């Protein structure tokens, strides 16, 4: 699937032997699309690092309000982590299904990924609602503003990822495993795994360190 042959959008001198190493001309579209999306993901991670920096600076600025130690429910966070980790695995299984061009494996694995992602989002919204109900909303202190911005931004990414996931299921259902659909599946996979990497940083820096210190 990498270095694919006969792409109608490419000039004829770019043959199937193109490796992207500069030897036989331009790389295949799959390599270019994947690499471009990788650059976007890294820029997204750079944006998250700014939110992490803001949180780390403001973590102690509770303005007399509740601290992370009093607020965080690590059991809930543990379940969220489990959901996202297993969904990362099922997302990988879906990419194997796409590799095999198996509708059954792909659609079931994507459905499992969606359910786990939705469960994660539900747990996160439950936590947010509980915090706001206890008067610990984003306007309470600089610490809570930074907390809701950072964790909420990750939640927003998961929400967009779920919409994208449904779009991919519909596109595979309607159009099959075409080359361009396969490229989108590759990019979606990268996006979903990157979300899990950011979550590792979130549960360590925000929840575990917040509860331990």
């Amino acid at each position, binding site marked *: 699937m990498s270095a694919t042959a006969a792409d109608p959008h490419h000039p004829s001198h770019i043959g199937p*032997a193109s490796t992207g190493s500069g030897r036989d001309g331009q790389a295949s579209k*799959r390599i270019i699309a994947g690499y471009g999306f990788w650059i976007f993901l890294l820029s997204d991670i*750079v944006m998250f690092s700014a939110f992490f*920096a803001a949180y780390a600076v403001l973590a102690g600025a509770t303005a007399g309000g509740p601290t992370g130690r009093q607020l965080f429910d690590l059991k809930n966070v543990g379940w969220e982590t489990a959901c996202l980790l297993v969904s*990362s695995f099922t997302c990988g299984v879906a990419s194997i299904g796409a590799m*095999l061009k198996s509708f059954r494996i792909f659609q079931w694995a994507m459905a499992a990924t969606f359910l786990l992602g939705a469960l994660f989002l539900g747990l996160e919204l439950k936590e947010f609602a509980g915090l706001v109900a206890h008067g610990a909303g984003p306007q309470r202190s600089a610490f809570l503003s930074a907390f809701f911005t950072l964790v909420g931004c990750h939640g927003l990414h998961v929400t967009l990822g779920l919409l994208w996931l449904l779009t991919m299921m519909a596109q595979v259902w309607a159009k099959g495993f075409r080359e361009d659909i396969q490229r989108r599946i590759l990019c979606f996979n990268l996006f979903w795994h990157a979300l899990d990497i950011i979550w590792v940083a979130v549960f360590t820096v925000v929840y575990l360190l917040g509860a331990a210190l």
Partner: protein
Amino acid sequence: MSDASIAADQPVDLPPGDEGADEGRVRDALISYLIGLVLATVLSAASFLLPVTGLVYAPALPVALVVMAIAQMGVHLVFFLHITTGPDNTNNVLALAFGVLIVFLILAGSLWIMANLNYNMASMTQIMQMQR
């Protein structure tokens, strides 16, 4: 598969997220995801259990947690995103290295500057006295 036309000794570029283009890709990919799942589960569980069990000397706990988080990110990168050190992955690794550099500059720079500012700034009560 059309990949058969590529000589085996020629390094082929890979997009991030793709395994090598050899035979038995499916089995390799599945094994890779399974190894990743097991390692990430172990590291996550350890991160959550460590503060509870008190196995680690308490002042060293933050360092232990950060080390395990970085290890888990490495596991995710290698086994889920398939970013490896192979010759087919040079572009992806270089982009990652640049991203890590920027992230490090933003985090370390912010913390350093803000800690310095905190240290050098007069306290709120002193400022209010000066305004009288």
